[in-house]
């Protein structure tokens, strides 16, 4: 190559390099400007009988698409970890947690965890630990979400059903023994068990008000007649763990017409939402006065309630007629009812449509894992 040839070659190479780098800088700039204004998540409804996922646009409440899941039919609880961009799917009554890629919904691997695990589970605040109960081994299992390995297995009482957490305290409902087990997470031991009049079922904690809400079953047999209730334990954790000198008092209660199922506390801690499957109702309860302030008619057999990350809308899955009712929390009215696949179980909010270029709560983690490093190169 002559000197002129060299020069021409270098100019062409520099132009090509400049164009590519310019494109990447421009693309990066545009991407970040657009993504700030974009919608950050979709509502992802898990229909576990049909084995599908219905994706809902949470702004216009349109169904975007329905995607098949490669799972056998059954009852599954879906739990999205935004920190690690992981999706846990718990097959109720089985012994494994399925770990899915939240964007492709492919099963990546399974975690053997315990016998007859219950589909409900919760993460700690940092999403580093996942709490799940194993009914047959009467234990609360703590799972490290990074390594997916069991950190601890804590024995509670007979037939644990559901778990809630407040600060470093976990509370488990045990249906057969009709008790609540209070567990110090740091000490990894049960510090107190409280016996109730009837079976405790679902349990949730408030966000900032130290309250715990428990749905209990209706009992109507020859020996006892106890109505279905919502129990409210206020400041009880402080009393149990000796952080205040209050005397233990009976919890507050709300009498219901039928056994409740799903429970959710609104983000502002003002209201508690409760589904009553047998009556096709959603109750809105004022947490301060413990009064039912609104009853909404849902679809058939309303099941779980999930509130969107902004705290504006509640999604109630109606497992009896394959629909989801979307409720405006502030207005306390149903905005729309959407058809889903068979057996809608629960709703998770994350950016499943990653390829659209939108950002989401999980984008950071998705990029790392989705970058398909596989440590490939």
């Amino acid at each position: 190559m002559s000197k002129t040839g060299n020069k021409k070659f270098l100019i062409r190479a520099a132009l090509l390099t400049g164009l590519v780098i310019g494109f990447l800088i421009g693309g990066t700039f545009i991407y970040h400007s657009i993504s700030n204004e974009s919608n950050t998540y979709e509502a992802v409804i898990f229909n576990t009988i049909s084995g599908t996922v219905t994706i809902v646009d949470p702004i216009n409440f349109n169904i975007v698409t329905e995607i098949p899941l490669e799972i056998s039919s059954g009852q599954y609880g879906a739990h999205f970890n935004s920190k690690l961009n992981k999706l846990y799917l718990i097959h109720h009554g089985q012994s494994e947690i399925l770990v899915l890629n939240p964007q492709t919904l492919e099963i990546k691997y399974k975690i053997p965890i315990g016998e007859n695990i219950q589909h409900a589970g919760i993460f700690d605040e940092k999403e580093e630990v996942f709490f799940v109960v194993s009914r047959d081994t009467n234990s609360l299992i703590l799972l490290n979400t990074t390594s997916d390995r069991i950190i601890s297995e804590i024995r509670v009482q007979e037939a644990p059903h559901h778990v809630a957490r407040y600060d470093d305290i976990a509370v488990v409902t045990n249906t057969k023994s009709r008790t609540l087990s209070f567990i110090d997470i740091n000490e990894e031991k049960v510090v107190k068990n409280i016996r109730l009049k009837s079976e405790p079922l679902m349990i949730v904690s408030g966000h900032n008000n130290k309250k715990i809400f428990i749905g209990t079953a209706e009992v109507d047999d020859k020996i006892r007649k106890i109505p279905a209730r919502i129990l409210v334990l206020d400041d009880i954790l402080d009393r149990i763990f000796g952080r205040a000198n209050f005397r233990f008092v009976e919890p507050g209660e709300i009498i219901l017409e039928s056994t409740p199922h799903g429970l959710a506390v609104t983000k502002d801690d003002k209201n508690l939402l409760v589904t009553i499957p047998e009556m096709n109702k959603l109750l809105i309860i004022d947490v301060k006065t413990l009064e039912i302030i609104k009853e909404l008619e849902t679809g058939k057999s309303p099941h779980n309630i999930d509130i969107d990350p902004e705290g504006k809308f509640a999604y109630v899955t109606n497992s009896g007629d394959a629909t989801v009712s979307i409720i405006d929390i502030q207005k306390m009215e149903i905005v729309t009812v959407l058809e889903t696949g068979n057996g809608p179980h629960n709703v998770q909010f994350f950016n499943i449509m990653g390829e659209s270029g939108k950002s989401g709560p999980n984008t950071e983690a998705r990029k790392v894992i989705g970058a398909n490093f596989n440590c490939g190169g």
Partner: protein
Amino acid sequence: MIEYSGLLSLILTIIIGIGFGVLLQKGRFCFTSALRDYVAFKDTRVLYGLLIGIITMMLGTSIAYSLGVSNSHFWIPNYGLSNIIGGFVFGIGMVYGGGCASGTLYRAGEGYLHYWLLLISACAGYVIFASLFSIFFFPYFFTPLQIFEGFSLIESLGQTSVLVPILIILSCVLYLKKKQQLGLITNISKFNISSISINNLQSAWDAKIVGFGMGIFATLWFIVWGTLSVTGPQARWVGLTYSNIIGMEALQENIYWNNVVFSGGNFSISLDMIMLLFLIFGSFISAYFSGDFKIRMIKKNRVQNAIIGGMLMGFGSRMAPGCNISNTFSGLAFLSVSGFVTSLGLVLGVYIATHWMFRKVGCAI
């Protein structure tokens, strides 16, 4: 625990690993030499071999893909400015250190202690990178920069992908014919097995023939395992070794080791890791029987090159992500955008580093 999908795969892995080692050693097939020699001296000996290898692999993998090999065998990472930066750092490191990812391995097999030190330094680079990943590289490097979805033309075309390399080969033949430079094709066509003798085998092989052989082996590897890569399995070996020093729990707590290097916390020995070992063994065997093997002490004034160059290569290959083999060789063969972008950064790094290293004598380009 060793994880492999059958004895046949394991045997093929060993054969392919040894094959790569022999070819790299006999052809002195190093990307640093190919690019640096071209920039500094306009020497195209290895560069042409590299191009032939890429086109052969493109043809081979597209045929295999058309015949039913899964698209999961393609490695198509997302890309962005991070690739340019990572490639650039890697390019600087390989010129300063004196060898690319593959060149380092075959020279290590020839007994050069300089390249063992370079390799160890690169491994130290992986460990430091992993410890900085969650606090720096993840939030401030990959999140803002690696934003585009990965794309490969070969993978996206499916069964028709085989037309692309055929068109490229035809265009090359027509171009060379027009320029009356069909010599290298004639060289390949003249090659016949009866001309092979012990002396021929012991002497260095033509880089073009080696490039062709590399393309064939890379295709076989694509069928057996997936994309040909070096620093990926290297990082996994480092991870397993490191876990014996600081404990498995510590690695499981680190998001880079647990979720990226050992995807899903699967800490086991995979086929590509085995292939890598046999690649070094293959180059050792080849060097030994060619009389090229000798323990060569590292020169004092080159110690810093090995340490700094190796560290830069370790960091660069994690930042891009990928090395010259997975991006420039496999990536270009897949016509992958990330491979192209990373290679561009790599060439830029090589160009600048070569000019700096040869600043006293000057470069041809």
